[in-house]
């Protein structure tokens, strides 16, 4: 939200009103209030595209509270998608855990499985090759062993 405010005065006005409504910062805003404020900001017309990137959603815990932080995050993603905002783009990265897959599979405009991407394989091969050929400690290794490491790591990495 702070980042959005740096982009436009209209966003600033919404956040400033929200700040005033919370006793000029004397009250602590709840998560749902913050979420509503974000939605109000996103609904403002005439703004440039907004990209929301949620990295590592599977790292959001499922063990604390009910609903858990991950469930809350998934609900937020669901609401953002259902907002059908013309200038909003959302990108989520995560492992395909069962609960995440259940929600995102149906919401996603497009899903990418990294371990199926040839570019990912090439990146890994490139990186392994770089390290095997430049790592100081591996300089003592015989060429055949370096080759074995390269083959095993690139062959078995399965895109990871």
């Amino acid at each position, binding site marked *: 939200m*702070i980042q959005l405010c740096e982009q436009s005065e209209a966003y600033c006005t919404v956040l400033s009103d929200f*700040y005033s409504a919370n006793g000029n910062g004397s009250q602590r805003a709840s998560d749902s209030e913050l979420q509503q404020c974000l939605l109000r900001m996103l609904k403002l017309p005439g703004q440039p595209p907004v*990209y929301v990137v949620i990295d590592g959603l599977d790292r959001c815990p499922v063990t604390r509270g009910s609903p858990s932080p991950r469930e809350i995050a998934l609900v937020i993603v669901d609401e953002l998608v259902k907002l*059908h905002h013309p200038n909003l783009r959302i990108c989520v990265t995560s492992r395909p855990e069962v609960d995440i897959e259940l929600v995102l599979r149906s*919401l996603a*405009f497009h*899903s990418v499985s990294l371990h199926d991407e040839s570019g990912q394989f090439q*990146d890994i091969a490139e990186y*392994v090759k770089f390290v095997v050929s430049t790592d100081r400690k591996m300089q003592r290794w015989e060429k055949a062993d370096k080759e074995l490491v390269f083959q095993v790591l690139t062959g078995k990495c399965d895109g990871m």
Partner: protein
Amino acid sequence: MLTSAQLLTPFPPTSEQPQYSVAYRSHIHILNHDALLNIFHHYRLQDVGSWNLRLAWCKLARVCRRWRYLIYDSSSLLDIYLLFTNGSPALDSLAHLPHLPLVIDYCNETATRVQQDELSILTGLEQRARVRRIFLQVPPPHLGICLATMSDLYPILEDLTLSSTTEEETSMVLPSTFSARNLRHLALQGVGFPTELPIFTYFTTLLTLTLTRIPARYYFHPGHLVTQLQGLHHLEELSIGFAIPIPLPSTEGDLLPAPMPRVTLPTLKRLTFRGVAVYLENLVAQINAPLLERLIVALFFEIDFTLVSLTQFVHATSGLRCLSAKVLFKSGGVSIVTNDGEFLSSGGLTININCEHLDWQIDVATQCCAALEQVLYAVDELTLELNKDGMPSDWDDSLDSMLWRGLLLPFRGVKKLQIGSSLTFELSDALKSDAAELDLNPLPELQKLEVQLEVNHANMLFSTFIETRDLEGRPVELDSRLSSTSQKIQTWLSPTDPWMNHNIARERQHSGTGTWWIHGEAFSKWKNSGPSSLLWIHGKRQYFCRPVLFCDTHKLHVYSGSREEHPLVRLSFYNLSPGRMTPHRSVPQSSRISVLCAFGDWLRLHSFIATSGRTERRNSVGYSNP
């Protein structure tokens, strides 16, 4: 006609049908053990909190004999243990269950509450062969009673934390006959560690060692500590903290010479110290930590600091490189943090010095920074802040501007200076150039000055400095874009800084990787897609069944991690018998290679191969010890 394999693999859910469709049904008994264990694992993940606390796994164990045996046989894999915590049932009431590992986890500030649970704690501690984890945070009398029972071998104990709830000095100490050959984490807080107990013999598997609030009577010399540490080849985190400033200045002379050659701690990533500077100097003069990422130091106040060894140590440790620095003055002390210490995952140095008055804080910070000048000259961005909460109302009385100039002098390479709102007036005064002080001109490389003030006000305060620098041909741009309201909102929301992790990732990115994605069709399509379109990038599901690593006499590991500072591939080879390294050319036919690789902080794959051939070639590999 669909094959049975196609029938078993349901079609993925769609927006029309969000659930998996069931195309094939069968009895659950056709599932093999691996499949069942995977299902049990997912069942556990649904409510991890209840799994052991409320014995949720018992529900599965009651289904049938096969499940019961499978669950009991896989207790380690399924993370099953008997948990003894505040108010949990006594061990006797669980006698009908098999001999599962025990976890004792008690945290009570009040003696009355502890008294009620004391019998359970002691009964648990006496089951030495079964105790896997102990966490006790209780008042001294009760902790002392528990310690008295711990005078023997705990063969499967992995994690031990004993913490006294009082700050007062006590005589509690870990029994010198205590041993735990599989201990990975040891933390003693307010409890002494007996100097006669050899860490390197009894705790060789330690990953973290925390000895804090060490009572004065259990003080140990840094040389003794280093001797103990040199046998810990896997130690990743070390915390040493003394309860009071010790040794006293009268006996500091014993510490001044650093007599021994340096000991390398090959896996240490995080070092925390609290004590007097002379002890720290002696300690860091004796160690090398090539993989160290974060050094956190809290020093008791002294009038004069000598930090020569610390400077050399930081200078020699690449993970502690200082790219940015923040000096924060606050009630109780001053902090010097490089690479922003709020993000503990990033590498850097943090020095806290206990001290009350602001002029003293500036003085000790100046001494510290001057001592570390060799490493601070690389700092590009400097932030100076003051948190007025808890400071005396006259904190800014009689502050000499020369104090501030002295603080800024060591930062010769700073290009951007950020000044917190509370210090704007002090620093504007200090930065005003004086012809007589040209030889003390601070921040010669400065290009940008960021202050949190209205534009006009900022221009007025810093005009002299800006004009002087213009005349000298070293212009400085004044940035005062933050209005007071937006600043207050930012403080109120206190958002995390996404650029920190972004910058770390960019620094570690291998050049050229990921361009296929940035220039790819999928990314481009998403950027130009319709309303609220969601792009989901995923990897593979985390493997549940970890590979059973080795049963053989010898091990050969190859592993890597993109988040760690380790090389991508490292070979380590060791004999299972502690202390007996087998020469690298005598790897037997039964040696195996495991590959553990991780590429990305949210995608982690543990893949495993076990090979039996090509031994000869591997035998010629030059191995390095871990």
